[in-house]
């Protein structure tokens, strides 16, 4: 089984330096693209590969790249940003790639920058990822030394400067326009779209923001071609995916597997099932801002198309598993407190609605819940859905709340009725 993304990664050894990386076939895609492909061909190849953004939204990567204006009349200044602000609770897939094989990300960024004509690129890195920062900075320095970064890369007309920027630490910076604002030194508040960043992004110039995992796919698509890439997936969607499992399972971790692997396989085979004495209760398939799945959904293939078909989302593909001994209300409270804390405070429903949700859940968990609280929570779960807020943070926060309310209805009622949390001893 091909594992292009993680083939160089051995955690105990640390990342490859540039020489070893090149020996392992690294930077070949850059040679190929810069010397034999027009930028538009690169974009076309990515589009045809069917690669979908791995940040969670699952937008076609080639489509997004194609939205950047090209040609004579386009702005001469364009930016590429790697979104390495991995702050989705329960998600650690980009961390694996950042710490495990930083040159792969740089190579992916070179491909993307070449395709859109960017001359400056940033890696916007989660503030806590100190090890990744160290390794990225070392790799960037090596790449400059070998002329994979800097002026006239490999003797071509293509130049790229790359900077590693540590985030000051806000969840909302994962939203691409809030990230852009943060990178400019402004408040990390999302921007209205349209205009989308490819039209007006960083410093008002065309900008492409791509997830780390997405970018890491690009070298392999260029090296091996579209049919190979498509064949990697199990189902409809192409490529491999870094899936993760956390929670009280036997072997929590992250693995590169074919796109479309089922939740059951992840849980039972790769994570080894629940710890002794615990039963599976539910899971969040891809971070905190996805729906709760029960055992009824375990056989769903984890890809964008299959999950969309049943009206839910895969998100980042790194699941959080809930067992039968952990209070689901406590878990939801934990999530909603996080979302409330991380609301940027720009739009009313998110700013004041999430605070209200967190207050209400706290009361319920503390045994101070009131009967009408469930309907207040349900109203919020509905009102914070897509369309009513400025960005996707609040709809994300509403996902586990809404599905939690229906899946754990009894627990909610029990908390309120008995005026205590039955899971607390």
């Amino acid at each position, binding site marked *: 089984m091909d594992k292009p993304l993680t083939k160089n990664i051995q955690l105990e050894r640390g990342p490859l330096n540039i020489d070893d990386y090149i020996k392992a076939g690294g930077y070949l895609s850059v040679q190929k693209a810069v010397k034999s492909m027009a930028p538009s061909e690169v974009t076309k190849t990515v589009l045809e590969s069917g690669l979908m953004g791995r940040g969670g939204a699952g937008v076609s990567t080639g489509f997004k790249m194609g939205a950047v204006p090209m040609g004579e009349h386009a702005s001469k200044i364009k930016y590429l940003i790697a979104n390495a602000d991995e702050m989705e609770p329960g998600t650690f897939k980009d961390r694996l790639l950042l710490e495990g094989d930083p040159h792969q990300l740089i190579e992916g960024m070179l491909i993307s920058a070449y395709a859109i004509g960017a001359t400056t690129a940033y890696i916007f890195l989660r503030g806590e990822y100190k090890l990744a920062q160290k390794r990225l900075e070392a790799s960037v320095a090596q790449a400059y030394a070998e002329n994979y970064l800097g002026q006239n890369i490999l003797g071509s007309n293509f130049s790229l400067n790359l900077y590693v920027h540590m985030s000051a630490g806000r969840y909302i910076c994962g939203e691409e326009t809030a990230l852009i604002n943060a990178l400019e030194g402004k408040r990390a508040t999302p*921007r*209205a779209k*349209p205009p989308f960043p490819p*039209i*007006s992004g960083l410093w008002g110039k065309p900008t492409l923001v791509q997830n780390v995992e997405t970018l890491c796919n690009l070298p392999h698509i260029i090296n091996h071609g579209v049919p190979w890439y498509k064949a990697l997936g199990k189902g409809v969607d192409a490529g491999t995916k870094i899936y993760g499992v956390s929670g009280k399972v036997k072997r929590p971790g992250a693995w590169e597997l074919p796109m479309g692997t089922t939740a059951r396989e992840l849980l039972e085979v790769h994570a080894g099932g629940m710890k002794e004495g615990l039963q599976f209760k539910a899971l969040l398939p891809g971070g905190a801002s996805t729906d709760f799945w029960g055992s009824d959904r375990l056989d769903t293939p984890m890809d964008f198309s299959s999950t969309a078909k049943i009206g839910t989302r895969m998100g980042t593909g790194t699941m959080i598993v809930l067992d039968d001994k952990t209070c689901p209300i406590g878990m939801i409270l934990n999530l909603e407190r996080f979302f409330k804390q991380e609301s940027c*405070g720009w739009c009313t*429903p998110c*700013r004041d609605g999430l605070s209200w949700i967190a207050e209400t859940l706290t009361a319920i968990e503390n045994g101070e819940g009131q009967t009408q609280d469930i309907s207040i929570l349900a109203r919020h779960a509905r009102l914070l859905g897509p369309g009513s807020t400025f960005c996707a943070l609040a709809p994300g926060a509403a996902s586990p709340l809404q599905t939690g309310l229906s899946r754990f209805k009894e627990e909610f009622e029990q908390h309120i009725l008995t005026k205590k949390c039955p899971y607390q001893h």
Partner: protein
Amino acid sequence: MPTIFIDDKPYFIKEGQNLLHAALSHGLDLPYFCWHPGLGSVGACRQCAVQHFKDAEDTKGRMVMSCMTPATDGMRVSIEHETCKSFRADVSEWMMTNHPHDCPVCDEGGECHLQDMTVMTGHNYRQFRFKKRTFNNQKLGPFVNHEMNRCITCYRCVRYYRDVAGGTDLNSFASSNRVYFGRNEDGTLENEFSGNLVEVCPTGVFTDKPFKAFFNRKWDLQMAPSVCQLCSLGCNIIPGERFESIRRVQNRYNHEINDYFLCDKGRFGHSFVNSKERLFVSMWRQKAKDVASEISQEETFQSATKLLSSSKRTVGIGSPRASLEANFALRTLVGEDNFYDGLSRHDSVLLSKVKQIVQRGPALTASLQNVKEADAILVLGEDLINTAPRLALAIRQNVIHMAQKKAAAVGIAAWNDLAVRNFVREKSDTVFVVTASKNKLEDVAASFQLHPDNIACLGYAIAHELNSEVELPKGMDADLLAKARLIAAVLREAKNPVIISGTSLYTEALLDASANVAWALCRQGSSARICYALPEANSMGLSLMNAKPLSLLMEEIVASKVSVAIVLENDLSRRLSSENLGIFFKNIPSVIALDSFQQQTVRQSKLAVATCSFSEGTGTFVNNEGRVQRYYSVFERKEKILESWRILRDWIRKSKKKASLWKNLDEITDDMCREIDTLSAFDQAIYRASFQIDGQKIPRETNGYSGRTAMVANLTMHEPKPLVDVDSPLAHSMEGYEGQPPSSLIPFFWEPGWNSVQSVNKYQKEIGGELKNQQPAVRLFDKQKSKKIVFFQRPPSLFKQQSGKWQIFPRYFIFGSEERAALSLAISEHLSVPCIGIGHEDAQKQKWLPGSMVNVEIDSKKWRLPVVIHPELESGMALMAHGLAGMDYAELPSYACIRLSESAT
């Protein structure tokens, strides 16, 4: 015309509007917070949600924010759809989770946009049962009060303060439901337009601090349409009165001038009316050194007419801050030959030059709206933020306007405010501001500093680039010529450029140069306009009176045998050197001074006559562009004080035996228009006292006005008869026409359900555009233009430093240089202090530090002042504070020696 359907009814829309703008423009009620017509859309508050349908069959629709959705032809939306309607109530409920519900003790109560919008959404029961978050408030200085707990986080304050007004010391802090709007520490808001926060804030976070100190509800104020008295731009204001004091001033929307914003001098400066320096009773001084004694109005009349009847020669000294009517009355009393302008020598010369330029043409004068919409702007010399602040703000608005045009190229709508700002990052490449010292427009415009003579040379060089008939100044260096070429190239491409200058640097060549530039552009066929900042509110009006210069009187004063001088609302100590002032009083045995407050001339005069202030009398001003505007008395005092023109009229009646002269304002107006040619169009600008709508006058009091009996209940229990106003169509009453009067007669804005300042929406044809009952402006210099252009041809020489000497220019201050505004309590806490500004190079050479005390010696006179360093000032010149209280008048520009003061600092 594009049409949209709102709840199945068709509405015409204007291309490029968003749905909210379109709906409000049609008079529909749709609640909103973060949107403001002066700020554009950002989509933050989610209050203006509407339902958008795919087609006529779609009944479910999709909820969209109307402020962020372009209105396009054929679009179908609903305001009344249950989904969006209940969502809007939910948004109100969210906002109310932390709002303190302290309306009864809140200054905003009763004129609160949050109250209005909450009622509009129908939200009335709050389910939130948890503790509200609380904040600490900040002390933000004398103008604006801060009460953060009331905040609903609409972000308007910071967007206005930073993005429109250019302030930097107000910001948003923290996140989630703890977003805080304030400064990083307590302290006076630095921006000159901070007072607009009071009107921009939709609730009671930012309120009018001086108003708070003597508070009453909006509906208990008596209000009238008025015009700012404190600079030449003529911004429209609404003063509000209770118990014979002016409690506050609000913006009176006029889209051609001040639109939604005033400067802080205009908003907080007018309470000089309440100052303890007010002159309520006339004073008589038998001999120069006597203590003055109070005299009654009848005694005043007797004394004045007696002095006049025995006078050999009586001269009148007019005033650029007195109304046209008052100046005209004085001119009539003393005769044109004896009427002097009451200006300093330089002001006189400059003002007649300005008049010559705007009358002769061909460039029309620019209104603030013309400035906002210009496609290129050149400022030559004038320090606008201090001499005509609202004009500086108009330039900022222009920069936004031009950015919107740029953003349109990539499909970003003009109202999509943050998108426009994110897309356009560069400073303006069409606005050039050249001044002697920093001008506070550096952050948005191409700006640099030069000696005033060199600015004039630059102007000549630009004009020369545009038209070689204009002489090129000699000896200009390559850098300056390159700048001239660049600016000329931008102006040449512009269709509606505006050239701005003014009189405050006392440099006539700047006026010549700016006229040359404008005229050269006109010659090319562009509709270039010209705009001059003038010294005072009615400077332009005074210039139409054919008054002789005061300096002429001073030249002949010894020989002229003047027995009586009547000084009209003017303090000659601000116009003449102390030496000349001494000569004036020594040679004129009887000086009669009319004014509404104590000032040096009043204190020295034989007869000081108390006149009413703008708040108690009606009069007319001509602003810097030649726009005729009337301000109406807001209230009458129980102890009535007359307007200057009425006092003078009584003297004319007696001395010229015209017992029935000018029974009311209309009659003097008629006479004035007959006698002064330029003013013949004047009567179109005003409504006669007989004007009524539906047989009714326009009430100055709201229909909620309370306490008209209670206010005087300690004296009498009878309701006093409403006062009759013979001068205007306004009534001192709550009874009268309740609809919308013509634009110049709007005493306050109010509509049912719209109690806040945003009720102005209901008075506009299109939101942000002109008022429904907009009267055409009367601008005196729009006609009578000759096409013939005769350029000014004597460019000054480039400045050459004189060794051991500095050339001193005046420096004006927004807070302090206007004598009356300085008397306002709030502004008195914010006054600039006398100082001398020196360039960095000179200061280093002389080893002077900021605060070093120096003696500035002009001729034989000395001013002892602390040094302020202006790094950008050219070597060899200095800026001396001008017009501040306690500083003797200095005739500038002059050469001076500056020496470190030997006495201790």
